[in-house]
């Protein structure tokens, strides 16, 4: 009370990271659900899944994968740069990360748009009355990539906020845990896509 350190000014670097990792585990389990469902339906409707997967554009899928992997790189490089007190380089790398995320989302927009304009979406004409598993493939595809896309957007917002804090100096080479935690979130978004990509795009 008088002169004793209040809990709120206390900084705990390790504790902060533990909290973030625990939160990431919850995100992991969130995506575990639809991926588990996917594997069950893949097992049950192999033919329909193969056909539906062929209809997805592998090229765009690969390009998006490379985008996210590269954005993960730039994010990790940004952490190192911040630890080495290279503020300008950090900001450039963070900008590149956000840009990659934005391009990813734009690609997704065109991908989805193409499918939707052909009626290939849950509730669309092309899938009406489908019971052989095709409707479920696309149901899972839109759900999983949609949920993932929301996380990409959230990640971009988090990184933009972190970049502002770097710019202001509130994140610096002495206190960078908020940047690290932002990076952890972004990497998780990347890891989820690493799994989503082959299960939807590469079934042959």
């Amino acid at each position, binding site marked *: 009370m008088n002169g004793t350190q209040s809990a709120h000014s206390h900084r*705990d*670097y*390790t504790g902060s*990271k*533990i909290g973030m*990792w*625990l939160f990431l*585990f919850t995100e*992991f*389990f969130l995506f*575990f659900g639809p991926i*588990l469902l996917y594997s*069950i339906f*893949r*097992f*049950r409707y192999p033919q329909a899944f193969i056909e539906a997967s062929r209809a997805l554009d*592998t090229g765009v899928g*690969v390009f998006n*994968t*490379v985008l996210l*992997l*590269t954005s*993960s*790189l730039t*994010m*990790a*490089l940004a*952490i*190192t740069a911040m*630890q*080495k007190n290279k503020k300008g380089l950090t900001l450039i790398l963070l900008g590149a990360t956000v840009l990659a995320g934005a391009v990813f989302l734009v690609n997704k927009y065109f991908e989805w748009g193409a499918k939707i304009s052909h009626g290939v979406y849950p509730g669309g004409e092309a899938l009406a009355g489908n019971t052989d598993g095709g409707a479920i493939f696309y149901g899972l595809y839109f759900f999983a990539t949609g949920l993932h896309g929301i996380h990409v957007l959230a990640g971009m917002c988090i990184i933009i906020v972190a970049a502002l804090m770097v710019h202001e100096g509130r994140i610096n080479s002495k206190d960078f845990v908020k940047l*690290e935690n932002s*990076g*952890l979130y972004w*990497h*998780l978004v*990347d*890891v989820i896509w*690493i*799994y989503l*990509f*082959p*299960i939807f795009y*590469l*079934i*042959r």
Partner: protein
Amino acid sequence: MDAKETKAHIVGYPVLLAVWAALLGLTWLTVGLSGTGLGSFVIVAPFLIASVKAFLVVDYFMHLKYESGFFKYILLIVLGTVVVVVWLVYQDVAYRY
């Protein structure tokens, strides 16, 4: 409270770039393998390769390799839970009717 806070490990640029190159290589491998006639292995292969990629990201980009044992331990708990849950659900799905 941990009085002795170890200095955070800095992962060098070359290491990160090497990991990125490996990730791209594995992506190319996954795409190449899809559609090849490896039988049932071709279903599992993408998952396995994806897991290798995931672990590269987790270990190097997310610094797990350089963290204390505690972080690896809790990741193990999570993965253990996944294994058990998947196995039990599989006991249902594989033996229905």
